[in-house]
């Protein structure tokens, strides 16, 4: 068809006002007109606005993201694919990614969170990898009292949504994190991570190639779901968002499960060339991105797209975010084989178009061309902004050091901390998630890092997600470093070598220079740490505009890192692995050793935030060399089989970490530390507690000394009390008491 494209009947006139409604600046609209050599049709405007949205184009973050190291000898596919891929040995690769579903989850928590899980799973299995684990990183606002009613509803909906979706598809959720802070009152964060594995020669990419090859559409029919979702995720909230409510997508995990099985089977059949799911901006992003990767064009007949309601316009068809849909490009003439596989799994499939060598996307609808646009310039040539960045005006005020008072009664302080939803037990959440399906889970939720065996190999994968938004708010660069350092440390506690990182950058509006600065600084800090630990960033996601009426969320660059344990047999006896790799005391008589040193750091600490109600000062300094030395020591000790347990020191400091170790299995500690009561709550980094059989203590101490890591024996595992002498007193409590406070905290808070 060579006719000049035109809008479909009944569609509005395209002008700069309509473009502005679509979030395009005057300049962006002008650029689009120049690119097309004419005014865009309505469908074209919709397509361009989706591709130019922050969500698809990364226009405000791209220049910063370039700071991340993305290569290593293990990286197979870095950023740019649906999920990054790394080599994990023994002929296997892992594909993983994290993505946000913040705005949809705030609007409709259950469906928003559920479809977030669905989307990230599709990103993984479109690479040909079978998903084997999920993590979820959640941030909520205040949940106390009257005001917290809506937040409690959000917590409930998000957790049920994540659970119901992952449970139904049969992917274990093996960990995550959950935080509460007032800065999320108007914008919660729901970041979902998925990991899949695949034989190294079976990896797929989302590429459309070979002129004439058919394009198949598979899965659910297209409805009016989430139209404008991509643009919505890139706009700040205002009163008008209410009006956008009908755009909520509903997830269908059953269809996802059959789509997963059918897709993997189709990819094994040998006739599939490229696969792409329809995520944000649906058919638009899948067609354009696939074509761009293959340097190709596409012709799509929108009349052939299976619809749920006949009345959809071409604009709506292209922008619909109906879930559980995929696009396959197959060898010419072989599409029937794929259709056959899909239909055996009960899925509809239809041929909606073909690959061309025109480099253009041409869309027809009811005999009319409704879009004819060059692919490459729209996908790769989307605007890139170097937004003005400047530290927030109140930075000095924020970083002003506030004197921290020592607790009169450290036990009381400990109990108060354990009783907050922030530091309380998260079992109420993760017992709604199937964490053992697929029978790989050696260590599930409730530890520093989850550990999954890799059937058929001697090795295991470890995974964790971390970030401390208070640290990031006080000093973004240090906070960025810390997030990566803590994740690497969590992996080191189980002896895993980090092999790749993904992340989700949750920030306010980048058009605010202070936020642009936070973004840049956080990324810089993360990148420094990635280089120091030699961890490549292989995928990620940016979620900006998380703010309501000018109130932005704390900068929250969620980090998820995957590590490999080469030989599980080095670490401990097979039957003990679940104990040894966990972080609780379990064997009376073991020695408890504290690694690393304290510098009395309280800025952004849980003690200061939750007990003294102050959020100020500088966060703990992250000494990357000290972290690297500690992690190397932990991995060495793991490989040598010395450790019977390990837990890093994070939020809450030393006393909280010891209490967590004791509460894990109800087995206590009798010990002493040479510090005062306040230091029990310091959050200095690069520290961990390990337990070792007494006979191994010497070797461990010697190894620590060789690596320049401070080590001191704290006491012995045993009994049912936590007894710790410090300078000027003793903490002495029955573990059962602590446990009660800790386990009741979250259920009580969520009502």
């Amino acid at each position: 068809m060579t006719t000049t494209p035109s809008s479909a009947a009944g569609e509005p006139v395209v002008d700069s006002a309509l473009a502005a409604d679509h979030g395009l600046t005057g300049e962006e609209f002008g650029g689009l007109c120049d690119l097309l050599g004419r005014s865009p049709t309505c469908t074209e405007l919709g397509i361009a606005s989706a591709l130019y949205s922050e969500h698809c184009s990364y226009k405000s973050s791209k220049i910063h993201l370039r700071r991340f190291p993305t290569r290593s000898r293990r990286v197979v596919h870095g950023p740019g694919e649906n999920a990054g891929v790394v080599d994990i040995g023994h002929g296997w690769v892992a594909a993983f990614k994290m993505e946000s579903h913040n705005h949809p989850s705030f609007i409709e928590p259950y469906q928003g969170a559920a479809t977030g899980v669905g989307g990230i799973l599709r990103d993984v299995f479109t690479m040909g990898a079978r998903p084997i684990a999920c993590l979820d990183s959640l941030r909520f606002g205040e949940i106390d009292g009257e005001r917290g009613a809506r937040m409690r509803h959000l917590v409930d909906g998000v957790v049920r949504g994540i659970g119901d979706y992952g449970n139904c598809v049969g992917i274990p959720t093996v960990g995550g994190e959950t935080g509460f802070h007032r800065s999320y009152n108007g914008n919660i964060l729901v970041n979902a991570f998925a990991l899949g594995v695949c034989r190294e020669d079976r990896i797929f990419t989302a590429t459309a190639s070979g002129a004439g090859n058919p394009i198949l559409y598979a899965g659910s029919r297209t409805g009016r779901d989430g139209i404008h979702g991509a643009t919505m995720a890139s706009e700040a909230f205002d009163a008008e968002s209410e009006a956008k409510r009908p755009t909520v997508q509903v997830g269908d995990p059953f269809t996802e499960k059959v789509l997963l099985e059918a897709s993997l089977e189709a990819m094994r059949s040998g006739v599939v060339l490229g696969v792409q799911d329809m995520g944000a901006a649906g058919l638009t992003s899948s067609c354009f991105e696939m074509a761009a990767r293959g340097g190709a064009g596409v012709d799509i007949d929108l009349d052939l797209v299976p619809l749920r309601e006949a009345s959809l316009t071409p604009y709506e068809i292209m922008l619909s975010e109906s879930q559980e849909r995929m696009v396959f490009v197959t060898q010419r003439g072989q599409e029937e084989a794929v259709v056959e596989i899909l239909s055996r799994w009960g899925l509809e499939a239809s041929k909606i178009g073909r690959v061309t060598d025109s480099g253009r996307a041409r869309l027809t609808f009811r005999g009319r061309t409704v879009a004819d646009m060059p692919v490459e310039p729209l996908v790769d040539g989307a605007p890139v902004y170097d937004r003005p960045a400047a530290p927030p005006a109140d930075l000095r005020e924020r970083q002003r050091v506030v004197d921290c008072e020592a607790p009169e009664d450290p036990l009381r302080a400990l109990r108060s901390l354990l009783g907050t939803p922030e530091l309380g037990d998260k079992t109420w959440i993760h017992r709604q998630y199937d964490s053992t399906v697929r029978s790989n889970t050696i260590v599930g939720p409730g530890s520093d890092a989850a550990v999954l065996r890799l059937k058929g190999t001697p090795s295991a994968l470890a995974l964790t997600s971390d970030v401390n938004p208070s640290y990031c708010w006080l000093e973004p660069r240090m906070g960025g470093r810390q997030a990566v350092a803590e994740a690497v440390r969590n992996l080191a506690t189980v002896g895993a070598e980090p092999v790749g990182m993904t992340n989700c950058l949750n920030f306010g509006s980048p058009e605010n220079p202070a936020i642009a600065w936070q973004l840049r600084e956080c990324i810089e800090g993360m990148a420094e740490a990635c280089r120091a630990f030699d961890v490549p960033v292989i995928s990620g996601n940016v979620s900006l505009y998380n703010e309501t009426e000018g109130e932005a969320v704390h900068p929250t660059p969620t980090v998820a890192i995957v590590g490999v344990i080469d030989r599980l047999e080095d670490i401990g006896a097979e039957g003990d692995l679940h104990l040894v790799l966990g972080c609780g005391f379990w064997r009376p008589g073991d020695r408890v050793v504290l690694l690393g040193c304290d510098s009395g750091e309280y800025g952004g600490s849980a003690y200061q935030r939750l007990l003294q109600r102050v959020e100020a000062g500088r966060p703990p300094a992250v000494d990357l060399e000290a972290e690297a030395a500690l992690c190397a020591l932990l991995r060495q000790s793991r490989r040598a089989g010395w450790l019977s347990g390990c837990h890093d020191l994070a939020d809450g400091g030393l006393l909280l970490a010891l209490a967590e170790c004791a509460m894990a299995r109800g087995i206590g500690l009798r010990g002493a530390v040479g510090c005062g009561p306040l230091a029990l709550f310091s959050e200095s980094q690069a520290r961990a507690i390990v337990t070792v059989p007494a006979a191994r203590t010497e070797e461990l101490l010697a190894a620590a000394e060789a690596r320049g890591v401070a080590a001191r024996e704290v006491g012995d595992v045993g009994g049912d009390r936590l007894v710790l002498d410090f300078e000027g007193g003793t903490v002495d409590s029955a573990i059962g008491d602590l446990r009660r406070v800790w386990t009741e905290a979250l259920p009580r808070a969520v009502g």
Partner: protein
Amino acid sequence: MTSQTSRHAEGPEGRFVARVLVYPRAEVLDPQGRAIEDALGRIGFDGVRRIRAGKSFEVALEAADEEQASEAVDRMCRQLLANPIVEDYTVEWVSE
């Protein structure tokens, strides 16, 4: 959101019984309805054109009069029984 009140039934002592039907909104995906349609097809019911799958609640309550009863049930629907973002509800009154 549709809230249709047809007939109020008043039992002894101001007792009312409402029936609340909650369905996925017409434009929203109804995976359960689809799955049931398919299942019915598989077991040989060919005449089935469409299934909508929803919830049904029977609410027995005391209220001073019809108006209060009706107002209370409507509020329950909005606050708890239905999720207006994805569901529509209707209220009918039944005799005990």
